């Protein structure tokens, strides 16, 4: 097991090197650069030249790449071009926001999706099954931004129950030692702030969780159906085990494998940032950060951000593999 983990971690090095080169070349292949973007309508050939000189963008590309690698090697991801702040500082603010949102969305998707799929399978062919199919299809096919605007219209504008933007109400003062606002509220021992932050998470989590919810429900249903018809289930029932024990220990546990896989994969995806959800809810996470950076050709953010997201993605997948072994003793990673 340990060897497996170490080997997977070592694989990170070539993956990251390859990725950094790819990102590096790709963003420089885009037409126009950060200088043009910074100045907008006010750019002139002279001012553009001046900025390029300042950021070393006029150097040959291999020189730029080498100096970039040297910086990253020091654990420094560079300085953003627009805000002139260290990329790592912005990352420290953005990533916790995305993690909070991701977990809220996964919580919503799993807590609803797994039972929905399970019940659908147990009531295979009945109206329960059919309506779960309809719910999942709606979940998958409704565009997120539309769902988000609809949710906000109903729960905020019309009912006035929930906020529409941001992570916390502007009238609440809270220190941010961790930038995980829920944890910050706990540290501060402020239940009002905790409730406020939770309220800000509800709508984005539903919007973002709608697709994972549908996928999780479908996969759960398929997995449970599969397992239900296995011989060992028949055996278990035949030897007189209570139905509840069969359901939990035999069917559900065996069906968990594909469910965990799909949830794990989605975690990786969601952690890289949910562009649409974050934009519509003005939620300052990774997604909006990276998209803005593409638009503004902020090379430092793109390079650092994508590198970071790749590391997270690889690590999450590693965790999924490890959890296989824990759930299913038949699987031995080696």
């Amino acid at each position: 097991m340990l060897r497996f983990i170490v080997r997977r971690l070592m694989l990170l090095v070539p993956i990251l090197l390859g990725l950094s080169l790819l990102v590096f070349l790709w963003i420089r292949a885009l037409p126009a650069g950060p200088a043009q973007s910074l100045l907008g309508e006010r750019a002139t050939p002279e001012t553009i030249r001046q900025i390029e000189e300042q950021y070393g963008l006029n150097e040959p590309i291999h020189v730029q790449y080498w100096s970039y690698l040297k910086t990253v090697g020091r654990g420094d991801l560079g300085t953003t071009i627009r805000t002139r702040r260290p990329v790592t500082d912005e990352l420290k603010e953005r990533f916790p926001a995305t993690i909070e949102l991701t977990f809220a969305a996964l919580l919503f998707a799993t807590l609803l999706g797994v039972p929905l799929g399970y019940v659908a399978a147990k009531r295979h062919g009945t109206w329960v099954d059919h309506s779960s199919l309809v719910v999942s299809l709606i979940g998958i096919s409704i565009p997120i931004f539309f769902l988000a605007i609809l949710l906000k219209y109903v729960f905020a504008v019309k009912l006035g129950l929930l906020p529409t933007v941001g992570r916390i109400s502007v009238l609440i003062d809270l220190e941010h030692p961790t930038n995980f606002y829920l944890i910050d509220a706990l540290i501060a021992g402020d239940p009002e702030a905790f409730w406020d932050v939770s309220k800000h998470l509800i709508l984005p989590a539903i919007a973002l969780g709608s697709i994972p919810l549908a996928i999780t429900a479908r996969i759960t249903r398929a997995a449970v159906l599969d397992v239900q018809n296995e011989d060992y289930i028949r055996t278990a029932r035949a030897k007189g085990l209570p139905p509840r024990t069969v359901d939990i220990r035999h069917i559900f546990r065996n069906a968990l494998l594909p469910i965990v896989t799909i949830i794990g994969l989605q975690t990786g995806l969601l952690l890289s940032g949910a562009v649409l959800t974050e934009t519509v809810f003005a939620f300052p996470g990774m997604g909006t950060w990276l998209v803005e950076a593409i638009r503004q050709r902020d090379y430092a953010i793109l390079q650092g951000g994508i590198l970071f997201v790749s590391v997270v993605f690889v690590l999450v997948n590693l965790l999924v593999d490890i959890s296989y072994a824990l759930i299913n003793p038949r699987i031995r990673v080696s």
Partner: protein
Amino acid sequence: MGGVSKRILLLLAMALLVLGAAGCGGDDDEEGGEAAQTGGTLVFAGAADPVSLDGALVSDGESIRVITQIFETLINLKPGTTELAPGLATEWEVSPDALTYTFALREGVKFHDGTDFNAEAVCFNFDRWYNFSGPAQSPSASYYYSAFFGGFAKNESEDLGDPLYKSCEARNPTTAVVTLTRPSASLLGALVQQAFSIASPKALEEFKADAGTLDEETGFRPTGTFGTEHPIGTGPFEFVSWNREDRLVLKRYEDYWGEKAKLDELIIRPIADNAARLQALQNDEIQGYDLVEPQDIPTIEGDDNLKILDRPAFNVAYVGINQAKKPMDNLKVRQAVAYGLDRQAVVDSFYGGRGVVAKQMMPPEVEGYADTVTEYPYDPEKAKQLLQEAGVQMPLQIEFWYPSDVSRPYMPNPKNNFEAMAASLNKSGFKVVPKTAPWDPDYLGRVDEGNAGDLHLIGWTGDFADADNFIGTFFQDFNPQFGFRDPELFKMLDDAEIEADRQARIDMYKQANQHIMDTLPAIPYAHTKPALAFRSDIEGFVPSPTTNELFNTVSIGGGSE
């Protein structure tokens, strides 16, 4: 059925309840917010976070909005106009040779840190700008300084010019004298910009406004905290805190020399998405926002709890012509383009009643706008006739560029504008070849380099109310965007820029505008009024053409109905 499935069913039922609630919605409008109050907190949304609150080192509108509340300039604009008014200077005198400016300063003004505002503080700031070095000289930082003053004490780039600034002398505590190296008449107009706001010298030094590391590999990284944690000026609001991407909090400055702020607190928050800004306003999470999309205006006007405020037009949308591409160098061809553009139809159809047809390359509010110029009403026959006289083969094929994925105050939907213009040109002896690129940086890059075909759609929003900031910016020198050299026009604009006599200067710019509309280096077609949205109980906000808007007059009125 086991206990588990019962619990699961319960969960399902809860889920259905939630979904059901979403489905049927609610039409019971919430009773409008808080009771009547004076003071209070106003939350206003911009589209992005500020970059920094050091006016001398930024050029983006979101930073400038906040800087306007905290800092003041020597000269103000009368609220809602482009007319100069006393600011930190109560009076000023320009020497006849336009080289020496003497400012009488307001007495008894204190910075937020308790230090005195005086002539030494003024000169400290002027000298600070002039002595910028390293990255502070970059146009991404001190764009407005170098755009106006040309260069620095020690220029670090060949692309910078000779400095216009010579010295500043604190003759006595209430008199500051600024001397220039060559005459310039637009200094007063330029000084209203927040790039020239006066900061506390003590705070600039204590919080190391100009310090930073310049690392070859990571770029410039400011290390001081003046612009992020300690911006200290003399304005009606003082800085409290700034949590990035969340909120920037300002509070009333109790010792303000002028009209003290009615609000206790002003909170600015960034919301990038247009629909999100509107919904946050409807939900009363914010009480006002800037950059209202034209398509949202009917919704806001139809809601009794909300209202729209107009900013006077301070921009120009135009069709740029690149004379480096033949046969655009032929005046008759350019005239044919002008007659072939149905500008009225474009403004009527796509500006939601918020635009007027532009006749000159600057808005009528700016001094120097000519009383009469040559006009080019839509006339396809005349266009064809001109093309014939020009001796080109009809239909004349022209490449016409427009930007995608962008909405500008002067051009809400470029594609609509383009399609209407292309249709009218195609009826006028042209054959339009459409070309497009994403706005920023692709499209803008092409336009600047002169690679955006024969014609291109673009526009300009003024930085300050001076003709030099419009036609001077476009046409004072050779500009690859337009690809022409007209020594007569260049000289007219050079002379006007330095003319000290106001009336003479106005006449010179009027003449230049007439010349421009005769020679048609570009064809203006629209001026627009950008909109802001507020809750209807917010009073006292005066929109300014140049966005110099102060929140000290704003109050939260007598409760919403």
